[in-house]
């Protein structure tokens, strides 16, 4: 609840990332925009249709089936004739098979988040809200969700809270920095990220660059690894000497570590891509490489053919 006396308007059609330290009020601001919380003073005016936080898995009743829950949310949002369409859309997107007709309390957290994501995307909102804390799921499904969302850009925009700078860069054009109870608007998300870091300690992460060949990808991976190690060391050091090094708060270091980890994954993926490409030219070696992990055998083979 750090923010006080904010006065800002977010233009329509622009995707915005909310940045700030832990406790700066990012999530609270998002909840206020979404209408889940009410401000102590002042008001929130929504000029367009705003979603609940995407992928929110808490809004389900455990004793009822997925279908019944979807029906409930559709009814709340005033769907009468479209209700069957919405159910069909969510069912096909969530792709959880027969579990759709079983009580939610039997679901795994992955299944829950699939259903929650499908549900958010079945409605035609102008603005979608996304809070990182509520977004879970395996990598494969995250990819699917982000593709589904990208297909909607142009008609809808996004207001998101995320600690992953890569995600913010990918989805947002503009940024809002919450710092010491005030909000700053940036037309460019990149500028917002830089301002966020300089508000902290002047640390600036490198801008990501797409490698063109295997060597470059490998070099990027090595760099990312080094960066990751450095970030971990910094975090460990901060943990050891708790109060003395208050210059950089521990959570900032933790996000930095997360960000570095994300980049290592990205770099590793790119190296794999290049190796696979090379391997296919040489022979059937690329087939041995394990592809996506948790998919069924027939899907895996379909994937291998396509790539």
């Amino acid at each position, binding site marked *: 609840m750090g923010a006080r006396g904010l006065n800002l308007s977010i233009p329509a059609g622009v995707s915005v990332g909310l940045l700030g330290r832990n406790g700066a009020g990012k999530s609270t601001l998002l909840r206020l925009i979404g209408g889940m919380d009410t401000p102590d003073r002042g008001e929130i005016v929504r000029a367009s249709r705003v979603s609940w936080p995407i992928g929110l898995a808490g809004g389900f009743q455990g004793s009822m089936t997925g279908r019944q829950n979807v029906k409930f949310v559709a009814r709340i949002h*005033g769907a009468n004739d479209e209700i069957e369409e919405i159910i069909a859309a969510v069912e096909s997107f969530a792709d959880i098979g027969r579990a759709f007709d079983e009580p939610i309390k039997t679901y795994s957290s992955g299944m829950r988040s699939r259903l929650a994501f499908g549900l958010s995307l079945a409605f035609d909102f102008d603005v979608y809200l996304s809070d990182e804390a509520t977004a879970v799921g395996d990598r494969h499904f995250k990819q699917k969700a982000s593709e589904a969302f990208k297909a909607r850009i142009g008609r809808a925009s996004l207001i998101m809270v995320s600690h992953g700078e890569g995600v913010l860069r990918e989805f947002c054009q503009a940024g809002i920095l919450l710092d010491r109870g005030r909000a700053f608007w940036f037309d460019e998300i990149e500028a917002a990220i830089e301002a966020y870091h300089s508000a902290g300690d002047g640390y600036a992460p490198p801008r990501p660059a797409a490698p063109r060949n295997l060597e470059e990808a490998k070099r990027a991976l090595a760099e990312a690894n080094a960066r990751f190690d450095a970030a971990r060391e910094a975090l460990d050091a901060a943990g050891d000497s708790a109060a003395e090094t208050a210059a950089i708060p521990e959570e900032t270091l933790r996000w930095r570590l997360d960000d570095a980890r994300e980049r290592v994954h990205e770099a590793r993926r790119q190296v794999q891509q290049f190796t696979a490409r090379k391997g296919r030219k040489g022979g059937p070696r690329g087939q041995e490489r394990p592809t996506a992990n948790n998919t069924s055998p027939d899907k895996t083979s379909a994937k291998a053919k396509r790539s």
Partner: protein
Amino acid sequence: MADSMLPIAGARSRGAWRVARSVWFAMFMREAISRTMADRMGWFWMIFEPLAIIGVMVSIRGLFMSGSEISGADHVPWMIVGLMGFGLFRENMMRALGAIDANKGLFAYRQVKPVDTVLVRCFLEGMLKSFLFLMFMLIGDLLQFELMPDHPLGVLLDWLSLWALGWGAGLTVSVLGDLVPEFGRVVRILNLPLLLLSGVILPVMYMPYPYRDYLLWNPLVHGLESMRVAFFPGYHTLNDIDMTYLWFWALSLLALGLLLHIRFAARLKAH
């Protein structure tokens, strides 16, 4: 896969009244399903539980008070009417007490307000109880228990009054019980004394004269006795039974409950 996901216009801009109506409808369907279907024996217990309570009460009375007659009414129908009327009030109040807590997850959808959960529960509870009462009347009549009301319209009005009283109590209690958990506990404890002091089991006419005035402070006594007067043609009761008094309580509680819901809406949603 992503392309097959056509967004569907569901969330067009709507007026406040339309939003409230669709929330009520959605909540009603949800509550109705979870009340009747979620439990395997849901339907059975809904009918059997009041039957069992009536059976126990009637046999207790038969054991301890055989011979003491109620003027103008058979004691089984007399007790059924009392228990049903009291049950209507009590269930409305007690179901409302847990309504907000049970639906916390739903406040993520900003359309759903804490007051909606209480209103819908009370409505559903009243509908179920009315259905049950009608069924008892029919079955009782077939078994020749004389369970057909003498003045159906009068019974209906009294029934609705008791419902309104329960609704008001539910609205008030739901807020207070959520803000102060101990309050809910106290309300639960007060259930039994309230049953004894409402003339459900012991006829108010048996009360010693000096205590009758105190008994008449309880609005439930007015509702239940008035309903029995409308039910049984020759039934006699206290002279001071007054439905205006009950409605004074009902409207006050409704107003208080709604006020509390407006005042504490944010607090009720929050935790």
